[in-house]
């Protein structure tokens, strides 16, 4: 409980730090939203007026605290550009990005776990080498190229999957999943390697543990040893990485959403950066940070689930 409180307090500090840093960064961006709003056909005075109207001429720190105050009462601000409520803008798109990331992670794990186990079972064996080569090849391809290739092959060439787009879940599960497969795969193809290699390294050392030798001595089959005995204790680094990767995936979605025309936060964000839509940038980054922090909190929980040493902490001196 105390630990939980400590974690939560730390999360709060991290979030505060993130939002403040972003606020600063965003505020030193050259060019400003006032021009964007005034458009090409207005005078310098008009721009200045808009600036005052938006309060952009006041000190950053004061504006930051106003913004934070707003967030606490559910007011994330209104986009300067589209006058859309930022909370809505972000929460509308976030599930889309979230689904993409989740799917990517699932695909990456689905590739990484069996591959990592096969590799670790006989290090330097044939399977290990083949998997290793595949893994290197797939990280060596930038995700945007992978994406373009996938579109060429599976959408335009074979016509199996749509090239672009997004369907809400309300259109049906398959309709929703279908256009997500290629983008998720483009992300997963980059991510699985590092998961696989992490798992492999840790599993190689776990497989040398005495308790694995004991499991062998008990007459357990290789498959059972890998899945039941070795996988869980080997997956701690991988799980940590899953949490950390959220940050990378969030970044990755920016390009992938662009290429596949998926209406996620990534696209919202990049558009906001280009148009200097401070409030939206701020909202997106805050949300990203929240997602990251939550993901890592979940990782902590996953630890507890995977490792009884964490789970039963405190129940024993």
């Amino acid at each position, binding site marked *: 409980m105390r630990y939980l409180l400590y974690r939560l307090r730390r999360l709060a500090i991290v979030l505060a730090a993130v939002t403040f840093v972003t606020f600063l960064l965003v505020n030193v961006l050259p060019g400003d939203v006032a021009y964007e709003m005034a458009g090409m056909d207005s005078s310098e005075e008009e721009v200045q007026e808009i600036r005052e109207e938006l309060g952009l001429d006041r000190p950053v720190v004061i504006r930051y605290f106003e913004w934070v105050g707003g967030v606490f009462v559910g007011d994330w601000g209104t986009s300067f550009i589209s006058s859309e409520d930022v909370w809505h803008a972000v929460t509308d798109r976030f599930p889309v990005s979230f689904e993409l990331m989740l799917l990517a992670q699932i695909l990456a794990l689905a590739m990484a776990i069996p591959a990592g186990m096969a590799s670790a079972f006989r290090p330097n064996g044939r399977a290990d080498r083949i998997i290793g080569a595949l893994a290197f090849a797939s990280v060596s391809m930038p995700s945007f190229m992978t994406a373009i290739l996938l579109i060429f092959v599976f959408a335009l060439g074979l016509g199996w999957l749509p090239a672009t787009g997004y369907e809400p879940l309300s259109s049906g599960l398959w309709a929703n999943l279908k256009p997500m497969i290629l983008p998720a795969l483009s992300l997963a193809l980059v991510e699985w390697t590092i998961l696989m290699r992490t798992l492999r390294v840790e599993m190689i050392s776990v497989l040398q543990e005495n308790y694995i*030798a*004991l499991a*062998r*001595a*008990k007459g357990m089959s290789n498959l059972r040893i890998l899945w039941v*005995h070795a996988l869980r204790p080997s997956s701690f680094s991988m799980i940590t990485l899953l949490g950390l990767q959220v940050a990378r995936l969030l970044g990755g979605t920016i390009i992938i959403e662009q290429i596949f025309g998926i209406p996620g936060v990534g696209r919202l964000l990049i558009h906001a950066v280009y148009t200097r839509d401070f409030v939206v940038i701020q909202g997106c980054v805050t949300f990203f940070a929240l997602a990251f922090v939550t993901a890592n909190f979940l990782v902590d929980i996953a630890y507890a689930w995977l490792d*009884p040493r964490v789970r039963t902490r405190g129940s*024993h001196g």
Partner: protein
Amino acid sequence: MGEIILDVRNQRTAFATARGMLNAVDGVSFTLERGKTLGVVGESGSGKSVLSRSVMRLLPGNSVVPSDSKVILNGKDLTRLSETELRRLRGPEMAIVFQDPMTSLNPVLSIGKQIMEVLMFHMGMKKGPAKEKAVELLRAVGLPQPDVRVNQYPHQLSGGMRQRVAIAIAIACEPDLLIADEPTTALDVTVQAEILDLLQRMVKERNMAMILITHDMGVVAGRCDEVAVMYAGRIVEKAPVRELFNNTRMPYTAALLSSIPKVTDPPHRKLDAIEGRPPDLINPPQGCPFAPRCKFAGPECEEQVPPLEGPGAHQYACVKPLGEEVAA
């Protein structure tokens, strides 16, 4: 003569390493009868663990075993069996307890699961009865509150309790052969005594054969029928326990015994240390591997590796055994 359970003939185990072949076990032969305990002593790296794993056929990928090595357990030649056939024997016919109780149990599985697993796989038990049996086994090895402990995880138990669990796992399927590889080295002396007593009791009650591996001469002295001393991958002396201690023939065994500080010695006595260090198993010296450190070694010792032989049950691998120089 009791029923012979284990017959190891000319076991050789080598490892491919970067520097070359490492002969960890080099031509070891012995037999073991039901109800008997064989103590195996030797310094670190002398091949005790590799020998035990060779018997279990649990060797890592870089190991090489020549085809003339044989391990015959209950009449079956383990070297001829497939991995699946071996798997069926591990547990019901042979079992092992490892040195370090802290690492020999899986940290993420409850100890109950780890015991039940063997029962379910080998005895085809269902979950419920397996659990009951597990509790029963834990009680048998003297674990307090077995019905609570069965759901706990290894980290919630102390070292001694974990070793009891490891023993429970080993005896779950009532094996004929139990190998205990330094089962008490990591434990405190008081706990060590309890665990050794427990092992001894189990072997007696269930009429098993046991190989007790240790580096502690004190441990084998009290609890074995026969003792084999290993040095550089070989058995250099083997005898019934009393015979070995009272009539030591191999200079290595003697040196080992005298280099051990004893509680009965007066303080500040100078120990008879064996100078030098054990040979490099990749490039072993010519002849008797102990010769370079042996006080009595002569040129004849470097000619060839002395075979393990001797009158009756007392065998030794030495061309200049102790107790003979007087006669000569």
